[in-house]
């Protein structure tokens, strides 16, 4: 299992340190010392090591099993994963293994003894990916185009080395594809009824249970979770509500109100391939507030709600009711974030229940369907704990605690997303007029475990309440 001091990065700056792991294991490892001039391992020993993986094309939330064979016994090797993000940044990870007596290593069976993760974790190379040294700061890995896969190259290198080592020690390599969309899933752009979103439909005629997918204050249109839901048999609508060019009004404020979200829910209900009485809502971050608001204030009847690290209200002004009688909510030029001397942005104050305008707080007591709240206990950006405590307390008070499921993960940060993708502990918030960063929190190994566990529980929760 994971150790708390999870990330042990072998510092291999000089030859002496590089030799140490080999010598410790066995004195008889002449084969493992790099020959002068980087003579290829294969030609000097007549060996061609083999690296295999299955499946080589997988969905993001599927495990991949990687094995090496035809290696010398009890030998130090390094597996290194590399990929380029859509923006062209290089992300990499690595893990150190020692082959068994039969000259093999299996990631499903063997421990990593150093690198981006420790211990036995077949997906550690994927969630352990980090921007390579020299890449821009504050990067976050998010797939924009879900119709193409991430292509991750896995290399096998001799010895316990870091990815910065000379490429010529690469013994074998393979390429894996990681997909957000299963074959047959259909991606449909939605620009109707004033909505800006993308609908993902599973293959087949349906009808399908559905999800409305709401993200946070970063804005834009985030598709990857919906694509995965559709790959698991749910119609899913990713909805943009802020910071998107196709939305009305200035992009630095939220110009849509309750009626917008109600329309989105109704689009799903009215869709001929959706089971109208089996629609859930999932919200992340500020999307939690929108989820709860939609479920309690607009008359729609979702079958279940999933909330991840978000608030029950907001701490800024709202305008008067809009023309259809529903309250509008505007993210005005009033700042909804605070910033410290080091340029770190936080939403803790804005998301803390004690700072919320009372009228803005959702009437949690009116929640009428099962609700799951997922909390990262190392969330450094939102006051998730205070919010989940408030929800629990409110539901208890009105005798609705049977509807409530609370998952809390020690060491997990704010960005609890689909599994086997890297956590971003800190990312760039804005560049001008000055560079600001958000501290999202989350210790890598614990956050990875939280993502894997919560995703499974999310899917089980959806199974239970939407099928």
């Amino acid at each position, binding site marked *: 299992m994971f150790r708390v001091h999870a990330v042990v990065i072998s510092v291999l700056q000089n030859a002496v340190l590089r030799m140490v792991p080999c010598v410790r294991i066995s004195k008889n490892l002449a084969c493992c010392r790099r020959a002068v001039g980087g003579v290829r391992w294969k030609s000097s020993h007549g060996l061609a090591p083999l690296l295999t993986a299955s499946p080589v094309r*997988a969905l993001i939330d*599927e495990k991949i099993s990687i094995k090496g064979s035809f290696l010398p016994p009890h030998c130090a090797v390094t597996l290194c994963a590399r990929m380029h993000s859509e923006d062209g940044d290089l992300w990499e990870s690595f893990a150190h293994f020692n082959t068994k007596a039969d000259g093999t290593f299996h990631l499903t069976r063997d421990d990593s003894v150093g690198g981006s993760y420790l211990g036995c974790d077949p997906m550690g190379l994927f969630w352990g990916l980090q921007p390579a040294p020299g890449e821009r700061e504050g990067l976050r890995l998010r797939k924009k185009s879900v119709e193409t896969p991430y292509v991750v190259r896995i290399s096998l290198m001799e010895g316990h080395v870091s990815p910065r080592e000379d490429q010529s020690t690469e013994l074998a390599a393979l390429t894996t594809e990681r997909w957000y969309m299963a074959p047959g899933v259909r991606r449909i752009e939605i620009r109707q009824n004033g909505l800006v979103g993308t609908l993902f439909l599973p293959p*087949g005629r349906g009808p399908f*249970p559905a999800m409305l997918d709401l993200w946070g204050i970063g804005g834009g249109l985030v598709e990857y979770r919906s694509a995965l839901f559709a790959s698991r048999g749910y119609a899913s609508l990713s909805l943009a509500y802020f910071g998107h060019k196709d939305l009305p009004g200035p992009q630095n404020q939220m110009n849509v109100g309750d009626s917008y979200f109600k329309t989105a829910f109704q689009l799903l209900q009215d869709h001929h391939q959706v089971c109208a009485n089996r629609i859930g809502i999932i919200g992340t971050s500020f999307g939690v507030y929108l989820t709860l608001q939609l479920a309690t204030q607009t008359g729609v009847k979702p079958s279940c709600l999933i909330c991840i690290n978000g608030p029950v209200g907001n701490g800024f002004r709202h305008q008067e009711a809009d023309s259809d009688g529903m309250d509008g909510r505007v993210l005005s030029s009033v700042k909804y974030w605070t910033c410290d001397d080091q340029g770190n942005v936080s939403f803790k104050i804005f998301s803390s229940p004690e700072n919320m305008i009372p009228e803005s707080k959702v009437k949690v007591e009116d929640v009428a369907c099962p609700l799951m709240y997922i909390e990262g206990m190392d969330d450094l950006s939102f006051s998730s704990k205070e919010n989940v405590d408030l929800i629990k307390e409110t539901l208890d008070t009105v005798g609705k605690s049977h509807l409530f499921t609370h998952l809390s993960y020690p060491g997990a940060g704010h960005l609890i997303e689909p599994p086997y993708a890297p956590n971003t502990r800190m990312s760039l918030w804005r560049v001008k007029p000055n560079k600001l960063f958000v501290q999202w929190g989350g210790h890598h190994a614990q956050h990875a475990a939280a993502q894997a566990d919560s995703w499974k529980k999310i899917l089980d929760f959806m199974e239970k309440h939407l*099928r």
Partner: protein
Amino acid sequence: MIISGVHSIRMQKNPCCVKLSVQPSRGLVDEKFSILVQNTPPGFQVTVHALHHSEDGHDWEAFAHYTANNTGTVNVSEDPSLGGTYSGVEQMGLLWSLRPVPGNKPWLRMRKMNVQTPMEVTISVYQGHQTEGFTDQAPLAGVVVERWYMAPGVRRVPITEEGLTATLFLPSGPGPFPALIDLWGGGGQLVESRASLLASHGIAALALDYLTPKITVETGKMVENEYFEKAYKVLEQHPQVLGSRIAMLGISFGAVMTFKFAVYSEVIKLSCAVSVSGSHVQPIDGSVKQIFDYLIKNAGNTRINEENQTIWRDLLLPIPTDPAFKVDVGRLKCPLMLVVGEDDQNFPAPESAKDIKEMMERAGNSHLLTVLSYPNAGHLIEPPYTPHVRATNFVTVGSRQKVVALWGGEMVAHSRAQEDAWRKLLVFLRENLYGTNLGATSLSHLQRKGISWDPMPNGLVRDGLHLFYRTEVNS
């Protein structure tokens, strides 16, 4: 009756409850998948259905009847099919029991000529135990599954130098890689389906068209044996190939050629050789044309059965005693694997295997020989999980005659043979191309090393020819 009625009412009220998942959704052609149906009422009857629209435009389907357990689940890997195109517990039955949808022309064969795109199969679940009319009704659930011949990162390189018509598939990675020449049979064309899969498993593979290459099409002349030697040299000299680790794999007529080069060629030096459904019977000095002439000379031995299907196995029988007409396998210096379908109606592969074994025992090199012999398997032993066809339309290069060739094999036994033979073939190739020793490698030696492969299930195992009986040579 009443129970199923109640269930069907329940399904109508809640049409979206049934869940179907297939994992992996994108697999290699030789990779297993798991199919799970969930959330049905307990004891619910379903039909799991597979539909594939082939490259040449025909629809193929397979289906199986299951009854959900008391948790409302059907697990195709563990539960028995109660009927359909296969029965019993068959994890991959929906693929290997695919057959042309009624209404299609008869005697079709499914072949993927473009290996750069996947085979797409739609897997669906229908209510009840159905046998027809699938396209007219709405399934309870459906998914699309992709089956790939090429793993990501595998490179496809057309080879046209030296007058060759070939395609080289290079595995992912820095190389250099051990390699193999892949030879298909008497139908000709450049068949890439096996070479692309082998490259996906780490072996650089050269699919070589030797019956209908550009040079034959243009000149009308069949290639000489130098053509194969050029192919070997091109491979040997390729910067991404380990020149000292090259194998040859042939099926049918391709296996006939493999025997010749494995024993007699001064140029081609093989680390190991594999013959699938082949024979060592041929004029030993003969070129491709001369071997065809030899077959044509014996054409009188062709038999036509009651269904008007052509049986060609007797063209090479009886196994000659004249050494000029069978490759002297006693001189073989590299490991040899024979894959034999005992119901092969196209080649006398079982008889040839028996003769080869005897020749090698007499010569003292039988420790090099591994024979995989499968009762009720036919001639076309190909990579697994593609449909078995007992007889198909066939045009031989040379005669240009259109016949329905009988290949043989009973579907279940043949499909199991394909799966078992492919797994063992990969182990054999890997041990001889990747392994440390440069001599023979016994597969019993592999078992002791803990490299797993499953022996044939009971009932399909026979002593003697079926088992690996070589003893370990090098320690």
